[in-house]
């Protein structure tokens, strides 16, 4: 078990999410940065389907009542065990009663804590990913007890960490394809979308990221149709919204771009005030 001493800003359990239920309106969900989540699981020789803790900007304090191994990937929020700094992207041995906490935000917006064999919270519709109305909780709260398996002892603590490319966190460029309605835009709009450096507004969360700079919009709304994580919608006010993992399955705004798989992961590490620019394949 892991006891939550402090919940942090926004902490939830995530895995690969729910597929096969879109026809009854169920969002995909799952880890916002799948690259970081997969890495954390890989380091522990976990299955990539195993559930992890997604921690936004740290702030969370966890106490282990079971010995296990953990690995943390993604954003760097100065993780510590019993107040001693630990490596990211490395295998860390955890003893009973150890306490994991976080400090300063160095880079990124979300980190992933993997435990050996994954978190074992309730599985609803083939996934443990938290979502309001589907799982009984949608956020980790203080005093929650998170079930984990008692650890097999076949692992060794690593003394080095895997080096990750910093560009995953720093690149402003988001690779994308033209979306289904891109060709409804006029040349001025297209040019602006291709050249503008956009700023992420404070309206950003697991459902979507709204951008500050508006595009002049003359397009009508559409008949409701499918949207996907990574779909960039042009709203009637001209603001762009980039849909993320918890987005609805359908929407009515023009879908002008579709982010590449990795661009969604990169965006998941960005926050209010960061700049982005769309680049085309």
């Amino acid at each position: 078990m892991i006891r939550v001493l402090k919940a942090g800003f926004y902490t939830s359990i995530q895995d690969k999410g729910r597929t096969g239920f879109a026809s009854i309106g169920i969002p995909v969900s799952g880890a916002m940065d799948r690259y970081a989540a997969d890495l954390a699981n890989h380091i522990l020789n976990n299955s990539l389907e195993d559930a992890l803790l997604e921690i936004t900007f740290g702030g969370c304090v966890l106490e282990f009542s079971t010995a296990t191994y953990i690995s943390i990937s993604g954003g760097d929020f100065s993780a510590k065990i019993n107040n001693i700094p630990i490596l990211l992207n490395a295998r860390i041995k955890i003893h009973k009663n150890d306490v994991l906490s976080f400090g300063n935000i160095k880079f990124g917006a979300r980190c992933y804590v993997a435990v050996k064999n994954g978190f074992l919270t309730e599985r609803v519709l083939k996934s443990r990913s938290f979502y309001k109305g589907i799982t009984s909780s949608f956020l980790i709260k203080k005093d929650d007890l998170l079930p984990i398996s008692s650890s097999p002892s076949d692992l060794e603590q690593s003394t080095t960490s895997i080096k990750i490319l910093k560009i995953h966190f720093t690149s402003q460029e988001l690779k994308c394809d033209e979306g289904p309605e891109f060709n409804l835009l006029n040349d001025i709009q297209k040019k602006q979308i291709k050249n503008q450096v956009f700023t992420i507004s404070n309206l950003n969360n697991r459902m979507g990221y709204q951008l500050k700079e508006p595009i002049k919009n003359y397009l009508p709304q559409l008949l409701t149709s499918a949207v996907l994580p990574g779909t960039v919608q042009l709203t009637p006010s001209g603001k762009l919204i980039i849909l993320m993992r918890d987005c609805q399955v359908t929407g009515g705004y023009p879908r002008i771009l579709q982010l590449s798989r990795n661009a969604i992961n990169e965006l998941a590490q960005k926050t209010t005030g960061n700049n982005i620019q769309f680049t085309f394949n």
Partner: protein
Amino acid sequence: MAFKRTYKPFGKQAILIEWNAVIHEDILKDILFFKDQLLIKRKGVYTDIIVGYHSLTIKLKAEVIDFYKEIEELKSIYTSKVKNHTQKKYIWEIPVCYDLKFGIDLEEMSNKSNLSVKEIIQLHSEKNYRVFFIGFLPGFLYLGGLDAKLHVARRLTPRLDVTKGTVAIGGAQTGIYPLDSPGGWNIIGKTPIQLFDPKKENPCFAKAGDKIKFTSVSVEEFHQLEKEVIQNKDIISKTVLND
């Protein structure tokens, strides 16, 4: 009859198929026919197939290397369609209590229109509504067929907490909130039925192509049915829809 369709990539891992941009039952029928063919003939190939008013979006397991080939495959499945592949459709009877206790916007709607509260209830509950697709929230049915006399603009300020089971009208649409959620539609009643139950193997009983019928019940009946829902009794009645 074959409908005109266009096929295009939607990112690297999905294909969007679009029909003419109109809301029409014949188009829905053709979309669902195609979807049923895909579910049978290409079982397990796609991760999700999402229905819209005039579209079908197909999500693939991996990034598509050759969209041309993938689209040709889809086209050949459409043209080789066989009749007996369609799923059985149902009419579901949804009990709704239109008492003013639940239908908190009924009086305001009546004041704004030439209709009495009684007439609003009658118009709403005498029709069958077609389920076009499910979206917005898990288990939220997009219903077609609301009487034009009942079209009423959404409220200027949405309510923050509309409870699940609430039946409402927004613009030309009527719907049931499957979960507690913010909402700007005009509230006309409440159903004790759970439109979405994640604990069930099939969390949402209705599907695209089915029909919904609202039946007016009293406050007493509502509370009785509510109890039965809590006891897990199956209280929804359905009849096979032949169309």
